[in-house]
């Protein structure tokens, strides 16, 4: 990764990346402006950007974006908490683990997006149903990582902590939890992304607010430029969240020797 002769880094890399973005927009603009691709189906980049500008200038987008982000954060928080609790419980209680095993497998194998209509019936068209969908997506990622994390605690570290006098609760706090947390954080990128997916898909399937709702509305009126604008705003938000996760990860996993998926090219 330090091969500075071939791989650009730092500011230069950012400039190159920006150039790629501009080139992609240029290509899009060229193809649609020259009508090689019909603008009706593929949108017009300039109008898309104008749309985004209008949203932010008028402030119309904020309530929708706010709702989507609140759903994401709630789904992420509850999903992670639940996954952590259940993961700890099952990993430390072998009887419960073997009993629950087929059900966990079944629940994980099921395509959970299909639960969205049921959640809409149960929790209404407000925030609740989207959070519920997000939780089902996040839960399993965190759960499996915690379960794995507890199982992979080095037996030597465990025996050492016991010899130093750690009781059950202290083992949980000083050995099991930190080990599990490292696995949880390494899956944080995926789980934040999934919480976001849950929120947007939920909105798309039925809601009165949120960026997913905006996209659905625009699609209904064949306003393809607004659809693209919504997608771009969502992508930017996802990138921001991902960056935030990387920051948190870097601070909390300082003890790890350069592992995890923080390094991306």
């Amino acid at each position, binding site marked *: 990764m330090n091969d500075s002769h071939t791989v650009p880094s730092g500011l230069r890399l950012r400039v190159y990346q920006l150039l790629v973005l501009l080139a992609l927009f240029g290509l899009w603009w060229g193809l649609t402006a020259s009508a090689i691709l019909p603008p009706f189906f593929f949108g017009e980049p300039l109008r898309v950007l104008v749309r985004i500008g209008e949203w932010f200038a008028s402030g119309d987008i904020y309530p929708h974006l706010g709702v989507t982000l609140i759903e994401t954060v709630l789904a992420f928080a509850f999903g992670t908490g639940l996954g952590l609790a259940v993961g700890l419980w099952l990993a430390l209680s072998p009887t419960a683990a073997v009993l629950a095993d087929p059900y966990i497998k079944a629940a994980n194998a099921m395509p959970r997006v299909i639960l969205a209509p049921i959640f809409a019936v149960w929790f209404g068209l407000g925030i609740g149903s989207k959070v519920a969908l997000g939780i089902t997506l996040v839960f399993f990622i965190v759960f499996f990582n915690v379960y794995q994390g507890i199982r992979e605690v080095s037996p030597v*570290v465990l025996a*050492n902590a016991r010899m130093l006098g750690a009781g059950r609760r202290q083992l949980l706090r*000083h050995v099991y939890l930190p080990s599990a947390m490292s696995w949880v954080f390494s899956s944080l990128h995926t789980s934040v992304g999934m919480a976001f997916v849950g929120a947007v898909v939920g909105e798309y399937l039925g809601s009165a607010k949120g960026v997913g709702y905006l996209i659905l509305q625009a699609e209904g009126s064949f306003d393809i430029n607004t659809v693209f604008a919504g997608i771009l705003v969502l992508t930017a938000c996802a990138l921001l969240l991902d960056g935030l996760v990387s920051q948190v990860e870097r601070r909390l996993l300082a003890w790890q020797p350069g592992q995890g998926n923080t390094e991306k090219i």
Partner: protein
Amino acid sequence: MSDCALSFAAVSAAFAAPGGGRYTAVAGVDLDVAQGEFVCVVGPTGCGKSTLLNMAAGLLQPSAGQVRVFGQPLDGLNRHAGYMFQADSLMPWKSAIDNVMAGLIFRGTSPVEAREQARYWLQRVGLAQHADRYPHQLSGGMKKRVALAQMLILDPRIILMDEPFSALDIQTRQLMENELLDLWSADRKSVLFITHDLEEAIALSDRVVVLSAGPASHPIGEFAIGLPRPRDVAEIRLTPHFVELHGRIWGAMKEEVLKGYAQSQGMARASGGRHE
């Protein structure tokens, strides 16, 4: 009996073998460690040395026989013992100083006082500068020092060591051995030290116990090491007395080592055949 810090009486350990049946690691072990005595156990690889130590620590229960600590039968973990493991045993998510103070925290010492003591012990093992580093930022020798401080801070009456320096290069190893002897001579604790390295065993201990090759390994010889203390482990290897002791103990060990080697070869062949 009561002046024994640690004593094994007819101790055996058997495990369920992977292919069915059982594997007897050690059988009929009688072994005493007196208070303040430094005992080394040597034996060929795979002879159940670590099993012996785990039983002394209370991490394993003997299948038969009894382990006694200061005359009391051992039930559960051995609260008088500190254990230094062969593999990395530090908590990787704790800095050096947090690792050293962990035992005190577990025993209910206040964090402020625990930190102060940990600082003192890190200084004793020469790592005052590296208190805030994480284990992955420390070299192999430094990690062993942290582990040593982590154990000694609790002031255990018995120290159990399982080839603690086997992963270190020879120079670092001799430094660590000298440091261990220094720390030990300050307040002679009882030590049961496991190694496969006969030279290390002689250089460190008061008494060397030789184990037979597994399975059902048991002590086949005991040798008092009358070398004067304090010792320098690098220099003492060159004295005639050391060479003479080495020759005698090696004479007793050699056959067992060859037996152990033949067995591990046989096992490798057998498992290789199964794969084909």
